[in-house]
């Protein structure tokens, strides 16, 4: 340390005297700031730092408030304050002076004022309001530097409510002749879009102008807005795809001015941004993706391929999502990374392995993961990895023993940190069982067998969650083991109760298990003792459990009814409305008790009685009805049971969908040069490989080049053999199938435990473009500690060229996303000849040509509308999708009390199709089939019609229905077509007729709300009436009453979900406040109100 200080001190004078830098301020070593900095560099302890800074703060405080302080001195004071805050000492007294400095200072002083404001204040700080006038003044300044500063600070932070005050000025700057002003104006609008998207909705066309700006900087700035908007609604911007492609083409082609290059790579960050946008646009959209292939290929080609060991690991991980076989080419690299001393690299490797796991390599990969878990000390890593192991175990377990043992390790290692859904879903799996009764019994028995010795050993070392799982399993299934006396299990469980570190949650699980097991007789003494101990426990849950145990152990009949052995878990239902208490409540009411009021209502009434409320209908509290739901009151056992059991029916319906056709992958010629040489069938298959036409030539090219490299890997020195063995066990099964089901769509390997995979893999496809790579580059070596050492050491430079070319190469890997969609839609080709397979690929890749016949038939589809619907208004019949045999179209019909989706299936081919099956589902909607869904055979050129009634489960601005038609061609090949259909939420809105009094009561009881200013319509009529009438007409709202400048409006979402709207004219705006018992409904409705008013 002293060494460092010494060097620092020797360096100081030289720096201060040699102050010849172009921009650096003239600082004398005697200046106050200079003193502070010197003081800071000389610090040796935290204590000294505190003394120094407290002293400094006092000095600053004294000086800032002095009237004689010049702006120039004030600037220095602000920098000193920034230093103090940077070291963690609050200097809040200087905030107001920072604003003053921004207001009164000139040039650099002003800029430092703005800088200090942006460093000191957070976005919601009330002092920010004082900045508005300064910004307003600077935006109108004739000095471009000041305009620039104002725009910079606005794009960093600005009070949301004051946006309208400066918006016109910022918009005006979009046409400024200077690129820097236009660019900063775009960035300011981006900020507005982030904090108040509605305020800038009317200028979307100006964003387009910015995108087409002749200056690349302005265009780049506009991409931020587009990325954001496309993330929110990709469909609305598909038409821009060719523009983004053209831009990327120009960037990659080196059309930008030289100063945009970074070490010879043309604008790499801009490329990333464009690739991110393209990934969003191309996701799940074959035709849009096709527009991009050429430029993606070009980007890939320009970025030299050079897989530098660890550098490319993460890239590989994401590429592997698209094509697991690619991993084969890098087997040895991956093995080396697995042994890498750096844990981070090891982690990434496991991440990669996780993605290529299949039924054949699962044991080895899980073993590697568990090994890592044993040495990992980081909680986040443990939680993440434990979840992955559990997922893999459930998906690919080769046998019962392995599954239970692996899960035991998961529970022991994951401890109490792991996600609660892991034990829940494990128990659910055990209780649901699977197809074979015998297998089922074996699995449960094996679990019991493995838990008993654990309890006999040292259960005190096991995590609580594991003990809970054990208790439950023993309670339910220990009877399966005939040689095991219930009395022994009971005493083992009772032992858990006596352990000091057992949590009360665990104890409650244990008591529950004991309740299931006790039979009276010999067991009675243990249960009696336990229930006596806990029936006086302070914990109410434990007390209840103890009482249950006591009563049920004495009444075997009642016990058999309450806790039937081997019961089907689905029959358990929780009466969340607590209706069984109705009688109690009505008796209490009759006896004069006050009626129950929900907490927020009580609070509201309290507030109202305290003071005059200025807002209509009082304040709303953030407490939502749902947050105080039944779950809070449930005992742990019941809770996890019920949460684990919900959604079973959904699982079943998914089973039907996902067990359908998935492909056996296309084999690769170069696969056999890997370490899978012993796998004969793979080789044979490789011979008949037909390159899929939907793959970009780039990927094939890449494959070829790697092919030529692979022979160099084959010579195998002795010590390598172990690694090779590992390789062959890790990468087994990859060549023969593309099994990675990251999209949650394909599930080619038969799963042992047939259940829906838990969610999707953690990285969804769109992340692929975001997280591209990881690297290992040793940081440039530090020569010594001297403060004034040049930061850019010369040895950095040599590395750079290499790094940057790799950077850009990384960027291009993002394109993988587009390929997959094609692969995923490929129908099952297992067992069919190559020619047929090729046909299918063409269909999947190119639905375009088949669109036209669809449009032609559309006209006459009207006549196929079911008779009972034909009189009602329906949306335009829109084509959904088509292939060479089927055309799908759909429309929705609005009935007074429902919304009907009508799907038309037209067999446009010359032959009949068989086993046609139409399935429709939605995340946000409840879909129920009216009459029978069309199914079975369809003759040539016939039309089948499906009708579905839709109700909203979860409001969203647009709700979407997805569906699949599966059918068989006469030749016996299975085919399927997927489609999606969007319905605006407005189709579900109906007027809601209520009186003003009813409205008032309801208003108070609704807990979800939103507020927003809308534009008023100014035509000849009175603006409020005109606006409300327009909304009424467009959105089918019911205007309850209009009084003066206020109006109240009501509507309902089908079937009976009310939403109330309070409108008030205020300063030229319509201040709207929406309330509903349904979360998200107010937000969605306000969106549609805005759209409705805009479109006028």
């Amino acid at each position, binding site marked *: 340390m002293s060494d460092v200080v010494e060097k620092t001190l020797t360096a100081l004078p030289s720096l201060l005297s040699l102050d010849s830098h172009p921009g650096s301020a003239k600082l004398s070593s005697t200046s106050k700031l200079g003193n502070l900095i010197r003081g800071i560099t000389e610090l040796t302890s935290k204590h000294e730092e505190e003394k120094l800074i407290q002293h400094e703060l006092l000095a600053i405080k004294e000086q800032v408030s002095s009237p004689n302080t010049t702006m120039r001195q004030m600037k220095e004071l602000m920098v000193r304050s920034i230093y103090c805050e940077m070291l963690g000492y609050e200097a809040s007294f200087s905030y107001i002076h920072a604003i003053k400095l921004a207001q009164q200072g000139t040039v*650099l002083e002003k800029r430092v004022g703005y800088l200090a404001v*942006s460093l000191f204040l957070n976005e919601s700080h009330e002092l920010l309001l004082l900045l508005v006038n300064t910004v307003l003044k600077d935006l109108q300044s004739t000095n471009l530097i000041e305009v620039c500063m104002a725009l910079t600070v606005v794009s960093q932070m600005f009070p949301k409510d004051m946006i309208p005050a400066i918006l016109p000025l910022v918009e005006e700057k979009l046409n400024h002749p200077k690129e820097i002003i236009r660019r900063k104006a775009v960035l300011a609008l981006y900020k507005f879009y982030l904090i108040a998207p509605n305020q800038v909705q009317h200028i979307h066309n100006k964003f387009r102008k910015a995108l087409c700006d002749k200056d690349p900087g302005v265009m780049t700035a506009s991409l931020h807005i587009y990325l954001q908007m496309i993330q929110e609604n990709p469909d609305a911007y598909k038409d821009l795809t060719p523009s983004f492609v053209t831009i990327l083409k120009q960037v990659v082609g080196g059309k930008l001015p030289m100063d945009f290059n970074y070490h010879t790579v043309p604008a790499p960050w801009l490329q990333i941004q464009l690739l991110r946008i393209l990934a969003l646009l191309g996701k799940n959209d074959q035709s849009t993706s096709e527009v991009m292939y050429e430029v993606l290929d070009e980007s890939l080609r320009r970025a030299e391929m050079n897989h530098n060991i660890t550098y490319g690991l993460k890239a590989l991980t994401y590429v592997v999502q698209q094509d697991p076989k690619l991993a084969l080419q890098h087997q040895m690299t991956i093995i080396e990374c697995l042994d890498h001393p*750096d844990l981070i690299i090891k982690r990434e490797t496991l991440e990669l392995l996780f993605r290529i796991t299949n039924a054949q390599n699962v044991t080895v990969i899980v073993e590697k993961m568990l090994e890592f878990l044993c040495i990992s000390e980081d909680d986040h890593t443990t939680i993440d990895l434990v979840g992955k192991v559990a997922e893999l175990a459930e998906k690919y377990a080769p046998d019962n023993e392995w599954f239970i043992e692996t899960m035991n390790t998961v529970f022991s290692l994951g401890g109490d940190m792991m996600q609660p859904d892991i034990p829940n879903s494990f128990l659910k799996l055990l209780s649901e069982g699977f197809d074979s009764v015998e297998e089922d019994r074996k699995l449960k028995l094996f679990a019991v067998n493995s838990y008993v010795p654990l309890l006999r050993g040292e259960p005190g070392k096991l995590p609580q969650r594991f003990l809970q799982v054990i208790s439950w399993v023993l309670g339910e299934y220990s009877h399966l083991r005939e040689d095991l006396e219930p009395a022994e299990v009971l005493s083992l469980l009772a032992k858990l109760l006596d352990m000091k570190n057992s949590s009360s949650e665990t104890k409650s699980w244990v008591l529950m298990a004991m309740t299931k097991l006790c039979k009276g007789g010999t067991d009675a003494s243990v249960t009696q003792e336990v229930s006596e101990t806990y029936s006086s426990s302070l914990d109410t849950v434990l007390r209840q459990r103890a009482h249950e145990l006591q009563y049920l152990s004495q009444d075997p009949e009642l016990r058999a009814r309450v806790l039937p052995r081997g019961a089907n878990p689905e029959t358990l239902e929780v009466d969340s409305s607590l209706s069984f208490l109705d009688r109690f409540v009505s008796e209490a009411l009759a006896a004069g008790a006050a009626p129950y009021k929900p907490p927020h209502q009580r609070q509201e009434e309290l507030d109202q009685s305290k003071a005059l409320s200025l807002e209509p209908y009082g304040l709303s509290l953030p407490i939502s009805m749902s947050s105080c739901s039944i779950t809070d009151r449930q005992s742990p056992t019941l809770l996890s049971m019920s949460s684990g059991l919900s959604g079973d029916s959904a699982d079943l319906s998914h089973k039907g969908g996902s067990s359908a056709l998935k492909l056996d992958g296309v084999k690769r010629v170069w696969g056999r040069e890997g370490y899978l040489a012993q796998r004969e069938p793979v080789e044979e298959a490789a011979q008949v490989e037909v390159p899929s036409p939907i793959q970009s030539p780039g990927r094939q090219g890449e494959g070829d080049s790697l092919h030529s490299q692979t022979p160099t890997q084959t010579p195998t020195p002795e010590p390598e053999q172990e690694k090779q063995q590992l390789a062959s066990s890790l990468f087994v099964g990859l060549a023969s199938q593309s099994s990675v089901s990251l999209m949650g769509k394909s599930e080619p390997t038969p799963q042992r435990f047939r259940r829906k995979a838990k969610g999707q893999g953690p990285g969804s496809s769109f992340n692929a473009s975001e997280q591209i790579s990881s690297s290992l580059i040793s940081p440039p*070596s530090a020569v010594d500690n001297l403060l004034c050492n040049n930061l850019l050491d010369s040895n950095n430079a040599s590395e750079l060229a290499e790094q940057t070319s790799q950077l850009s190469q990384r960027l291009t890997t993002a394109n993988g996303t587009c390929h997959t969609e094609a692969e995923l839609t490929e129908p099952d080709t297992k067992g069919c000849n190559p020619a047929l397979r090729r046909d299918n690929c063409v269909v999947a890749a190119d639905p375009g040509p088949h669109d036209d016949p669809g449009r032609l038939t559309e006209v006459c589809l009207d006549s196929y509308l079911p008779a009972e619907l034909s009189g009602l208004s329906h949306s335009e019949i829109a084509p959904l999708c088509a292939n060479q045999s089927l055309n799908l179209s759909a429309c929705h019909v609005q009935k007074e009390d429902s919304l009907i989706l009508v799907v038309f299936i037209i067999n446009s081919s010359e032959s009949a199709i068989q086993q046609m099956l139409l399935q429709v589902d939605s995340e946000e909607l409840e879909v129920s089939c009216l009459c029978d869904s069309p199914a079975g055979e369809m003759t040539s050129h016939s039309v089948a019609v499906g009708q579905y009634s839709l109700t909203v489960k979860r409001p969203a601005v647009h709700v979407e229905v997805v569906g699949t038609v599966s059918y068989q061609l006469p030749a016996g090949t299975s085919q399927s077509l997927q489609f999606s259909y969007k319905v605006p939420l407005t189709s579900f809105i109906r007027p809601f007729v209520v009186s003003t009094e009813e409205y008032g009561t309801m208003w108070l009881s609704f807990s979800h709300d939103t507020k927003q200013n809308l534009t008023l319509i100014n035509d000849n009529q009175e603006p409020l009436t005109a606006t409300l009438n327009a909304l009424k007409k467009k959105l089918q709202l019911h205007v309850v009453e209009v009084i003066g400048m206020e109006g109240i409006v009501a509507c309902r979402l089908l079937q009976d979900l009310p939403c109330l709207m309070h409108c008030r004219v205020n300063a030229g705006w319509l201040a709207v406040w929406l309330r509903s018992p349904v979360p998200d409904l107010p937000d969605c409705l306000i969106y549609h109100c805005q759209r409705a008013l805009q479109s006028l």
Partner: protein
Amino acid sequence: MIKFVLMVNRQGQTRLSRYYHSVELSRRAALEADVVRYCLSRKKDQCSFVEYKDFKVVYRQYAALYIVVGITDSENELSIYELVHNFVEVLDKYFSRVSELDIMFNLDRVHIILDEMIQNGHIVETNKSRILAPLTAIDKMVES
């Protein structure tokens, strides 16, 4: 998204800090100390990206100074790794052979440069001459 940018020397002293999401002042020192300790403990042959709690950290060492950037999981590490270098190159161009003391004595200017490059946690400019344009314009006005 970028969550914060730190410049710290080998002794763990903060030379610059900029947060792009709201972190209370009282929690910053602890967070910085923690992140920095983590980065300093890594050897030169270990990779420059580390996972820390629920976010990632990308760091680069220049002489005795570390530049540490906290990013969300969805951000591209390599792009940030190179951004750090671009930042240092810009500083080098402005200060002609930048050193730790340049940064200390010109904290305001370094912030102004950084503000041109990163806003709201997003990379907004990477073109060196354009990054420096506003600051050099200010310097010219101050001189005259």
